[in-house]
């Protein structure tokens, strides 16, 4: 049995199965309700049921007090529908979010190329509706033999929804990326689930855009920029791509072409380990240093999108903040792996 779940203030209506939690239904439909424990303990996911009936499930009396139950409050992670329902949740109204449902699909490998010595370009084919997504989002890839899926950002423009494209950097001793590099063959079928994440272009803000990508972190920005240029976005767009050496650059032909074709697009490749013997005449140093030089250290008034290794993302956040651009205008996708320690953070920042 399937009911209808309407989420206010978004006004979105999505299907919800009998027995499915409200939180699960929302997340599977791209609607992000803040949550933490997913077990009815922390009360982060508290919602109000405006219409219809829910089963409150295992909500702890600590997390959901008696008088709150009387006031029609519920915990999204435990509440299950008993009729069509309308809820109100503390979701930020994001005019740029498309709230695309998460799908489990199987892609067939149709292209495998070495983009650089350690980045593999994987093109998949997904028939039918394909894998609709918002440029910037990622998918979870199921790797045979591994319990947890691996996350990779989609590098194709959303207009090519039937051909998801991934850029996979080989991680030292990494199991999943090792498999992609050594075992994956054209014709193989791989299960994907997506789209996921809230890293996408805030088109509703007309600000000039800065993209800073590190290594295989070019994936999302490529999708985002191709999407913007395809639809004729006329505001200034600058892409910084930081890599070690000239041999680590990829798609630079494509971006140079785009730069030539679109007066509003600037492409800045940056080498951090150029030794002067490679004939490189472009930017050198760390990618955020190049951005500081290009912008005279002043970033105020832009929107910045950072994608790639956590260290690069952190260095870029610091550079941008020094240039008076803050959390509200900075969007990040950090390519975290298990090796990244979860150093304790304070609650000062939520999004960056």
């Amino acid at each position, binding site marked *: 049995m399937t009911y209808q779940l309407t989420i206010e203030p978004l006004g979105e209506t999505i299907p919800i199965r009998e027995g499915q939690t409200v939180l699960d239904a929302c997340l599977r439909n791209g609607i992000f309700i803040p949550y933490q424990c997913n077990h009815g*303990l922390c009360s982060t996911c508290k919602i109000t049921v405006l219409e219809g009936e829910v089963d409150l499930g295992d909500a702890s009396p*600590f997390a959901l007090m008696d008088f709150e139950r009387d006031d029609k409050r519920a915990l999204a992670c435990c509440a299950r529908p008993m009729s069509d329902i309308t809820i109100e949740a503390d979701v930020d109204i994001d005019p740029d979010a498309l709230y695309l449902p998460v799908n489990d699909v199987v892609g067939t490998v149709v292209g495998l190329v070495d983009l650089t010595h350690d980045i593999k370009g994987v093109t998949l084919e997904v028939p039918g509706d394909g894998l609709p997504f918002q440029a910037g989002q990622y998918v979870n890839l199921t790797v045979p033999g591994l319990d947890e899926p691996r996350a990779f950002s989609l590098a194709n423009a959303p207009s090519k929804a039937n051909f998801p494209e991934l850029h996979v950097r080989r991680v030292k001793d990494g199991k999943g990326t090792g498999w992609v590099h050594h075992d994956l063959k054209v014709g193989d079928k791989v299960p994907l689930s997506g789209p996921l994440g809230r890293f996408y272009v805030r088109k509703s803000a007309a600000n000039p855009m800065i993209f800073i990508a590190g290594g295989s972190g070019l994936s999302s920005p490529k999708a985002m920029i191709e999407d913007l240029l395809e639809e004729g976005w006329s505001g200034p767009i600058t892409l910084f791509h930081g890599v070690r050496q000239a041999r680590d650059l990829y798609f630079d032909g494509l971006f140079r072409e785009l730069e030539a074709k679109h007066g509003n697009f600037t492409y800045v490749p940056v080498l951090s380990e150029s030794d002067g013997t490679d004939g490189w005449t472009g930017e050198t140093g760390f990618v955020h240093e190049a951005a500081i030089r290009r912008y005279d250290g002043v970033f105020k008034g832009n929107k910045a999108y950072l994608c790639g290794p956590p260290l690069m993302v952190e260095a870029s956040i610091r550079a941008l903040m020094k240039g008076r651009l803050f959390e509200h205008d900075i969007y990040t996708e950090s390519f975290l792996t298990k090796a990244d320690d979860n150093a304790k953070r304070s609650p000062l920042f939520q999004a960056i």
Partner: protein
Amino acid sequence: MAEPPAEQPGVPDINKRWVRVTGTHGDFVLFDFTIGDPDLTVELILPFPAFLEFCATNHAPATVEPAAQAAYERLHRRSWTIPLPQRRPGGASDRLL
């Protein structure tokens, strides 16, 4: 009228107490302590042996939050596998735990 005396609505019973472990910090246990009603909760910290004593004296059943489970069990195991020190008065023994 032979009705039983109506219970006063919503007056918390101070003899009902609960403990919920939320985390650990070295040898310390971080926990929420509740008296009578979930609204009446306070966040506390005690060294592990003191924590056990506290739960016992308050007759407070303890639950452990899933996120704290592993760390809490480690503390638990450690305290039982270490041979109990000669109990000198004071904290010398606490330091070993």
